[in-house]
């Protein structure tokens, strides 16, 4: 029988012990003595969140296809177990073998959002691995970071041995083979890292140094040794149809956030919204073949037993074979009691028809993400959604029986005025008016329009990467402007407005565009007890403020400061294939309120065509 790292007493004392026992359907067990490389892959958040992440499932499957590798999963212990592990000195373990992570060859951590940074330190700390790369020896695993936040890895530079910039399906084999040969030859850890740094897409922070000028601005970013590349090139899979995809993903015992089969239909997005980092990072847009996706759907439903299937992409409506795929899913699986869930669909006749077939209209709501209230500001952010489209879509939906609408907005976008903010309330009201145009006997009671706003965080590699953020007070002021305007509306009883917390936004802003110096704050905040910062129940802003004070780091330098277009940015050494020039042009067009049509309508030469495929070469 499998051993467990935690004894019965501990497992009975903590919440949801199933988070820590492994053994789930489709999890992979191997004989540790018969593999060369043991890889622990980690999502630094609680199990239910981490298990919902497709990227980990893809890499887990891909690694385990190799006979010489055993890849196992690790998630953050929840705060209850965290205390027990510290008290009893239990080293963090991987779920499959239940062996300590510190004995593995690799610890790969996916970094999906800024607010998990203290959880990364918890993972290292509980694993009993030194948190600083410099202090590690061959006695410790090689710690790799991947995922969207690694497009500005600098705040985490000291904690990782290397970063993998780009999509995981490309150079991992090369890295694992290099590791095996280095261990066999008995080379030093430093030499291994030096060789790894020469693999395209691999960034080893210790071989690069930075300097700052008297104003604290980044002055230089240079190589310490000449053998490593000057720029790190993003890795990307061009043939997504042939890329590895897990036919039998792990099925958790407890309900994960994403308790369903996920079909990734495409990567990238043709839209080019100027605030969206993913829209730039994953260029060019690449579609998976629809026939392959049909096979995947069938196999994955069979192998997992899930009762729901969902499509995943940045903008599903832009997938060229969407109708074909959706009709197939409905015809093939709906009769077997399989739910079909279709997020990120544009509201039009087709999507309404599909939604009518797959969900209960009375319970479901329509979702629009206008992002900004006024047409002017929607043009600034290049959100190709007009008020006419919103009102038309809502109108059709209301006539079809829907009465609930959700609207998503951002506050604090560049050039935003009070008038733009007020338009959020007015647009919501105009949608409600559209509802009450329907004759009373044909509608179903009142409508419910729920508008939510988050605060805008400028991200690296977007046309807004140079812009200033607002202060926390200013964000809240803006939310109140919107709130008051809602109270002025005719249909205010059918409208609801809520907004997110501003303190977390400020921190996200610091880390999204931070440099190497802010790593100290993360360490200090962790020392003060910050953990699970993306959870409202555990987030503690006071401790973060204390951490900034203790480390003498000025929040505003990173948030409210407008960057010069010529400033050397901490992430400039990464080449995502989209040129800085294109981003500058897009910034200029934004300020003028000029929209840029999507990739299918016209090419603006962003640079992604250099990858030689995808939407750039359609037709």
């Amino acid at each position, binding site marked *: 029988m499998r051993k467990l790292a935690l004894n019965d007493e501990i497992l*009975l004392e903590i919440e949801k012990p199933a988070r820590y026992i492994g053994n789930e359907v489709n999890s992979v067990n191997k004989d540790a003595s018969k593999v060369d490389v043991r890889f622990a892959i980690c999502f630094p958040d609680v199990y239910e969140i981490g298990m919902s992440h497709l990227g980990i499932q893809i890499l887990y499957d891909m690694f385990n296809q190799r006979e010489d590798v055993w890849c196992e999963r690790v998630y953050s212990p929840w705060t209850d177990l965290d205390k027990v592990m510290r008290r009893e000195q239990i080293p963090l373990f991987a779920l499959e073998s239940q062996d300590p992570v510190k004995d593995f060859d690799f610890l790969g951590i996916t970094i999906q959002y800024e607010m998990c940074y203290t959880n990364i330190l918890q993972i290292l700390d509980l694993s009993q691995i030194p948190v600083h790369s410099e202090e590690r020896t061959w006695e410790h695993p090689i710690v790799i970071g991947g995922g969207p936040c690694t497009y500005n890895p600098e705040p985490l530079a000291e904690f990782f041995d290397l970063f993998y910039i780009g999509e995981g399906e490309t150079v991992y084999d090369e890295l694992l083979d290099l590791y095996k040969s280095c261990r066999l030859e008995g080379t030093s850890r430093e030499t291994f890292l030096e060789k790894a740094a020469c693999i395209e897409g691999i960034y080893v922070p210790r071989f690069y140094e930075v300097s700052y000028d008297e104003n604290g601005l980044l002055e230089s970013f240079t190589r310490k040794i000449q053998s490593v590349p000057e720029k790190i090139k993003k890795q990307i899979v061009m043939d997504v149809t042939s890329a590895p995809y897990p036919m039998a993903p792990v099925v958790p015992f407890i309900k994960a956030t994403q308790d369903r089969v996920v079909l990734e239909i495409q990567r990238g997005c043709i839209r080019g919204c100027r605030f969206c980092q993913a829209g730039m990072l994953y260029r060019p847009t690449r579609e998976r073949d629809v026939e392959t996706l049909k096979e995947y759907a069938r196999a994955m439903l069979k192998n997992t037993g899930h*009762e729901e299937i969902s499509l995943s992409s940045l903008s599903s409506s832009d997938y060229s074979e969407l109708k074909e795929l959706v009709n197939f899913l409905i015809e093939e699986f709906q009769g077997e009691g399989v739910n079909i869930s279709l997020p990120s669909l544009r509201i039009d006749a087709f999507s309404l028809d599909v939604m009518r077939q797959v969900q209960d209209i009375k319970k479901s709501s329509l979702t629009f993400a206008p992002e900004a209230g006024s047409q002017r500001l929607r043009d600034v952010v290049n959100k190709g959604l007009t008020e006419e489209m919103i009102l038309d879509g809502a109108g059709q939906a209301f006539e079809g029986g829907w009465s609930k609408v959700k609207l998503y907005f951002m506050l604090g976008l560049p050039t935003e005025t009070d008038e733009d903010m007020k338009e959020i309330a007015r647009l919501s009201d105009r949608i409600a008016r559209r509802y009450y145009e329907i004759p009373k006997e044909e509608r179903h009671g009142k409508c419910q329009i729920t508008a939510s706003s988050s605060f805008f965080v400028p991200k690296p590699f977007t046309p807004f990467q140079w812009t200033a953020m607002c202060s926390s007070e200013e964000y809240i002021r803006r939310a109140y402007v919107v709130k008051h305007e809602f109270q002025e509306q005719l249909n205010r009883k059918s409208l609801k407005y809520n907004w997110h917390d501003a303190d977390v936004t400020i921190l996200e802003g610091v880390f999204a565009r931070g440099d190497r110096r802010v790593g100290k704050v993360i360490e200090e905040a962790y020392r003060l007890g910050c953990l699970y910062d993306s959870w409202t129940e555990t987030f503690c802003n006071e401790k973060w403020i204390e951490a900034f004070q203790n480390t003498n780091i000025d929040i505003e330098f990173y948030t409210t400061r407008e960057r010069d277009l010529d400033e050397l940015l901490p992430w400039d050494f990464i080449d995502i294939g989209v040129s800085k020039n294109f981003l500058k042009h897009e910034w200029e067009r934004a300020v003028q309120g000029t929209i840029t049509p999507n990739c299918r309508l016209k090419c603006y030469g962003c640079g992604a065509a250099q990858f030689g495929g995808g939407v750039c070469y359609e037709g």
Partner: protein
Amino acid sequence: MKARIKFKKSGALRFIGHLDVMRFFQKAMRRAGIPIAFTKGYSPHMIMSFASPLGIGHSSDSEYFDIELKEAVSGREAVKRLNEVMVEGMEVVSFRQIGEEKKMTGMAIVAAAEYLTTLKKGSLPDNWKEKISEFLAQPEIRIRKQTKRSENEVDIKPLIYKLEVTENCFYMQVAAGSVQNLKPELVMEAFCRFLEVEWETVDFHHHRLEMYADVGNGSGRELKSLEDMGWEMEIETA
């Protein structure tokens, strides 16, 4: 057509709670391709009903749930197919047809359960085995029982059907089900208090051996295992 499935739960699976075991088997039914029937309506769900839930941390040789089938299947084949999609610690033992009467299914008919209980932490006085008959000879066995809403003192003696020693374990048969239910923990707590052993210093592991229905017709208990109430299901193969 109704079928009753019996399974064993052990090892790491002891830490999977009742609701998650239900979810596990819903997915397992799909993986094994068992032709289970669904309810009608907008959100159809599998027609499946579980007998008495097992406490977290306990293991069992005899857990049960009943399902409605769309068509007959070979019981032996179904057991094989289900076991192909199980995980370590979960094993399907039998898949039998049962009567169509509504009141025959799931929770409704459970009347008793049998447990094997072992001490896993702390110690009992040397003469604990002899003390059992004295314990059972008391006119009443009163203990504080906590329910969802309140806590009150009850006499559990009538709910203990058997309490014996087998080797170094306790063997007990107690009332179970929706009418009267006695958890094995409570029996051990009462016994420890009787022995004047501090309850907090000891810990027991409970292993469920079997679950029974009462098929007696009013004149005393007549227990029959839930499995024995079903019969083998075979289909003609062409």
